[in-house]
């Protein structure tokens, strides 16, 4: 047999044997990026449950370090640019505009319309998550709303009630600031915009043109910065205090109030029991207020080869009992109405403070500039204002310039 003939026969045999083999479709492998406050928590049980119900899909869940958001999003954007992004990932609204600018997101409108559990998520949550172009790219996963934690025992000893207005808040902070205790554990470091928002955005500032330099906005910011520079009701370390410091101070009795969400409630109850109480953030004299709606959603990326499978997975996570199981891992609140009724992972007073705060809950602007505002513009200007290096009005001018030029 000639060599050429031999090669032809061998090739033909190999091809025919491959074609003759019965077709066994390999399961689709989906990569999903997630982050939990406690990186020890794993969604393995949820993955196993999903894979049992969907044998054609394998989930590769990858825990990505959060790092205050910077680590997570830098990796996500770099992966998107490099063409190595996951099929779907946890995302927050503050980065939706950037992801849209990259054309990285897959619109989910048609898939959501057909999703039978759609109505289990409230219209308010759907509308908060809608993009500026009117499309729905995010599928809500869990949420938190920021509220006020206060030390019930210290308030009781001082004959005070939970503050409902800015004036009551300041008065309480002044009364409680003594003997090494600061009335308010202000967060001036990373992430502190969510402490600033209730008092300054709630006091009249907004992100539209001129909204940061209106008389009301400037007055509200002067008042908030003044809690540190004039009233001295915050710890001296406030300019750089982050989450860890404000929680530690509160638990140790070194501060009487701080602002955070339900995610820290179990830890606080373990440390303080019934001494820790919760209330919606105070509002201004005009009755208006603002607090941060801390969103978390899943998105499917436009470059994914398995968009339908990816939606099956993320919609599985947002469906009632799975959503409750997931929030036990994340420490946050279920987005589903039926899930909220089943949720027993948080004590009632903290859930109530969250839901009572929902009417004034809002998000930061859907702008590519928002992430930089959170990461650098707000902390550097706030810290300079707290240190007296710039005035509170200069700080607001800088924020106005950042968003509106």
């Amino acid at each position: 047999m000639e060599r050429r003939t031999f090669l032809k026969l061998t090739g033909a045999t190999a091809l025919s044997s491959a074609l003759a083999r019965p077709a066994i479709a390999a399961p689709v492998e989906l990569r999903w990026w997630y982050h939990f406050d406690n990186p020890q928590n794993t969604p393995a049980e949820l993955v196993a449950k999903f894979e049992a119900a969907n044998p054609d899909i394998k989930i590769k869940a990858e825990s990505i370090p959060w790092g205050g958001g910077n680590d997570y999003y830098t990796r996500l954007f770099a992966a998107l640019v490099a063409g190595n992004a996951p099929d779907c990932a946890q995302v927050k609204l503050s980065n939706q505009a950037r992801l849209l600018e990259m054309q990285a997101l897959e619109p989910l409108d048609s898939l959501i319309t057909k999703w039978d559990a759609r109505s289990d998520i409230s219209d308010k949550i759907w509308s908060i998550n809608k993009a500026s172009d009117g499309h729905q790219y995010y599928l809500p996963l869990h949420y938190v709303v920021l509220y006020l934690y206060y030390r019930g025992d210290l308030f009781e000893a001082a004959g005070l009630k939970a503050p409902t207005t800015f004036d009551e808040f300041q008065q309480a902070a002044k009364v409680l600031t003594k003997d090494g205790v600061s009335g308010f554990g202000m967060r001036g470091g990373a992430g502190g915009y969510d402490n600033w928002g209730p008092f300054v955005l709630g006091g009249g500032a907004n992100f539209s043109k001129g909204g940061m330099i209106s008389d009301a906005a400037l007055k509200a910011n002067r008042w908030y910065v003044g809690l540190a520079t004039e009233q001295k009701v915050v710890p001296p370390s406030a300019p750089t205090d982050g989450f860890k410091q404000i929680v530690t101070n509160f638990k140790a009795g070194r501060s009487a109030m701080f602002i955070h969400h339900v995610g820290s409630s179990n830890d606080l109850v373990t440390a303080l029991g019934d001494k820790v109480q919760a209330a919606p953030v105070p509002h201004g004299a005009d009755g208006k207020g603002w607090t941060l709606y801390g969103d978390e959603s899943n998105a499917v990326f436009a470059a994914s080869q398995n968009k339908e499978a990816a939606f099956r997975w993320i919609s599985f996570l947002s469906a009632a009992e799975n959503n409750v199981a997931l929030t036990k891992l994340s420490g946050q609140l279920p987005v589903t109405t039926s899930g909220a009724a089943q949720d027993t992972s948080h004590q009632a007073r903290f859930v109530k403070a969250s839901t009572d705060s929902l009417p004034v809950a809002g998000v930061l602007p859907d702008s590519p500039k928002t992430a930089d505002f959170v990461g650098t513009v707000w902390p550097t200007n706030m810290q300079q204002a707290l240190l007296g290096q710039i005035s509170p009005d200069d700080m607001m001018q800088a924020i106005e310039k950042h968003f509106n030029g």
Partner: protein
Amino acid sequence: MGEGFAPCLRLVNATAVPMRRQLLPFAFLAPALLIEAAIIVYPVLKTVWMSLHDFVLFRPANAPFIGLGNFTRAFTDPVFWTSAWHSVIWIGFVVGFQFLLGLGTALLLNQSFWWRSAARALVVIPWALPSVITALMWSWMYDYDLGLINDVLLRLHLIDAPIAWLARADTTLGAVIVALVWQGFPFFAVMILAGLQTVPHELLEAAEIDGANAFQRLTKVILPSIAEVIATALLLRTIWVANSLDIILVMTGGGPGFTTYTLPLYAFLKAYTSMEIGYAAALSLIVTALLLLVIYAYVRRAAREL
């Protein structure tokens, strides 16, 4: 083959062999050069390319060429100048104090005492620790409420109330400098100690016989004898310290405000927080250009020692 062709063939062989020999070294060098091109030359060229474009990570398809726009932006950016000034303070104080502390330690470790070997091993510990560990350790020591430093100072009645070391404009940069001085002084100690071993005893004995006191022996005999070692260590450490940002990043993230911004940190934050990769590349190249002077001095020194 006729005899007449023989000289021509010899000529061909004579030129062909040397040519192969000339190319052979390049063939041996090729793997190293290729690796260097891939991991150094290409990234540098890519950085230059990015610095000339308005390249933002979330707008990869829209990165227009802007020439030197990023560089001119830097020179009109007040945060750039703040960071540059902090870099000068950072390098000057860190390298200066590391050298002085390292010199003192080396002189001590060069003395005879029974646990000298153990001391020489122990002194390397700060250098061996990962930067993140060092930064966290110092952050905890500086902690306003629980920190060791405030506790000791209060017990000694040197202060009346705790100091928020990492939250004040007047203390933060100094506090971070102290942490890096602590981490880096063993490098100088080890380098100088090695240099001290080479100073001839006869020279020191002669100086002693001539009536030189300890300080004179140090300044007139020891330091001149190890000047080469000191100069090399200073150059190397200047390059490393100028580039270092890990300790600052972990301890303060550059804050409060811009109090601990240095140029490498500013470039890092522009790249990884603002995602302005083009501007960050320009900042990095400016730092590189400034460091080239030091690198040039180091390379000249290294070449002289070859």
